[in-house]
Every structure is written in C-alpha cells, then in structure tokens.
C-alpha cells in the first residue's frame, strides 16, 4: 500500500509571517530490534530522510532512526516569502518513497 500522509499548511499567509508546518506519515517505523513470532529479527525499516522544498529550495530536512515512533509527525516553522508550493519527499530503508504537495498563497 502506498504511504499515506497528511500535511497541514495554512492556505494563506502574509509575507514575513512565520507559520507552522506539520506532516504526519503512516509508517510502522520498524526499529530493527523486534523479533517476530518465530524469534527472527524484523529488519529495520524507518523513514530515514524527509525533505521539504519551498518553491524548489530545500527549507527543511530530517534524518531519522530507530528512536522515532510509528506514524511519525514532524513540525517546523517557515517564513512566508512568495506564493507557490511546498513539496515533501521521503524515503524509507526499503527504498519506498512518498511525496505530498501543498499550495500556499502569500499576500503582501
């Protein structure tokens, strides 16, 4: 099943405003420390990298490991500059990729 995510970006902001961005991704974030029912180690599989680009420029990057809970949520702050688009991309240890986009309108 494809990776599902929800993002929260204000639809509108005034130039210069600092606003919060939130993203939540459905992912088991398998730590690599858990055994299955037969005692075999379940391989580690976490979202290891997530980036956010604002009109093409990387504004946020997270590198994650085994210490992050399942279905992780991240929050960070951005300053509104120009109208355009936020693009989120992430990848897990198995190579599966996910992506979300959110438009933003910046007023003077």
């Amino acid at each position: 099943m494809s990776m599902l995510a929800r993002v929260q970006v204000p639809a509108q902001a005034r130039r210069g405003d600092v606003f919060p961005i939130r993203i939540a991704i459905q992912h088991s974030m398998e730590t690599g420390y858990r055994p299955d029912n037969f005692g075999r180690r379940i391989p580690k599989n976490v979202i290891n990298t997530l980036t956010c680009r604002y009109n093409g420029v990387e504004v946020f990057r997270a590198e994650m490991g085994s210490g992050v809970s399942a279905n992780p949520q991240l929050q960070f702050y951005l300053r509104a500059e120009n109208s355009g688009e936020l693009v989120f991309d992430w990848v897990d240890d198995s190579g599966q990729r996910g992506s979300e986009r959110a438009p933003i309108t910046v007023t003077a």
Partner: protein
Amino acid sequence: MLTLSAVAAEAPRPQPKSGIEYAGGDVRALQADDFGNPGMLWVARGEKLWSAPAGRSGKSCAGCHRDAPTTMKGVATRYPRRDVGGGELLNLEGRINQCREQRQGADVLRYESEELLALTAYVAHQSRGMPVNVEINDANRVNFERGRDTYYRRQGQMNLACTHCHEQNAGRKLLADTISEGHGNAYPVYRLEWQSAGSLHRRLRACFFGVRAEQPAAGSAELVDLELYLASRARGLQVETPGVRR
C-alpha cells in the same frame, strides 16, 4: 451469576462516562487534536478507499453511497444491527464486508486489515459527536442477552467477568492503566501501545487475554453480540472515532 445479571439489568445506571475521561491529559490532548491524532491517518485512508472501485462490479462505495459525510452520518450510532431481511447481527465491519461481497463483488476484507480498519474508521467518523443509539428490539434481543451473559460470566484462569473490572472497579488502577467503564464509543482507536489503529474486537480480545481466557475470534458472533451489549450500555455517549488510547 444469574442473580448478578438480573440485578444489573434492572438497576438504573448512572450516566456513562467515556473511556477518554479516564485517560491522562496527554492522551486526551492527542485525541482532541484533529491533526495530531494519528487515527486520522486511517480516516484519511478510508476516505481514499471510499472512492476506489473494487470487485467485479467495478463500483466504489461512493458509486452507490455518494457523499459519506451526508449518507453515512449517524450510521455508526445504530450498530451492531440486524439486516433488514432478518439476517445475522452485523457490526460496522460486517456491514462493510457485506457490501464488498454482495454489492461490489469483491473479496471480504480480513478483520484488522488496514483496509477494513480504514473504511470502518472513516464511516464511524461521520457520526463523531452523535450519541450512541442502538435499539434493543425483538429482532436482536437474543443477541443482547447473549452479550450480557458474556459480560457477567466469570472466565479464564483469573475467574473474572467484565463487570468486575469495568463496573466494580472503574476509576481504579490496574498496573499502569486506569480502568474505564469499558465502552466502545471511540473505536476504531489509535492505541499507543499497538503503535497502530485497532478495532474494538482487538481490544476485547486483549481483555479476554488479560484474564487468561480463551479469546473468541475477531468478527465472531460472540464478540458481535458482546459489542451490541456494550453499545446498549454506552447509549447517550458520543461517538469519538478515531479515539486515542495509551
């Protein structure tokens, strides 16, 4: 035992209290935050599945039911419920699978699968804030009585019944948990211990396991009957789907 259930059936019950009121502040805050509540990921997946064609009919749920916020509003408050045709008692999961099988010509979804959890959460979410309102009538009275019997029957190596924890000891501590009144009004819930969303039947099976009793299968008639009895106890409580639990 018989006397116990007879008394309990007649004694007026105080206003029920939702499980969320027994939860800690952090869990309550997470449930109340529509973005932070991880259960909303399942609701969002359910929304996508709602309009995805499936089975031989090539129809989606939306193809027949249109706009879920309108057509599914209040539906969860009336479940479990018997088919109009007088068929078996169905909970929401069973009802959704009935549509999959009979109306979409698709495979039934496995209980506890991501898809069935997502669709159930999405449908139940449309009733959030509405009071649980199951009706006990001639058609489902035998199910109600069977569910009530299960509720008051001692079982397992610990020889405890549901009532011993959820009626006689609600509000008290059991290890790290505060025992609630054992209502199902928030299900499916996101449970932090599971690191996932889960069904009411998964929770019930955990309670059977806790008293070291044999666990009925998820989706079994025994658990659907018990679910009906729980819903009758929870009448008036608001549907909270997706709830959050520790």
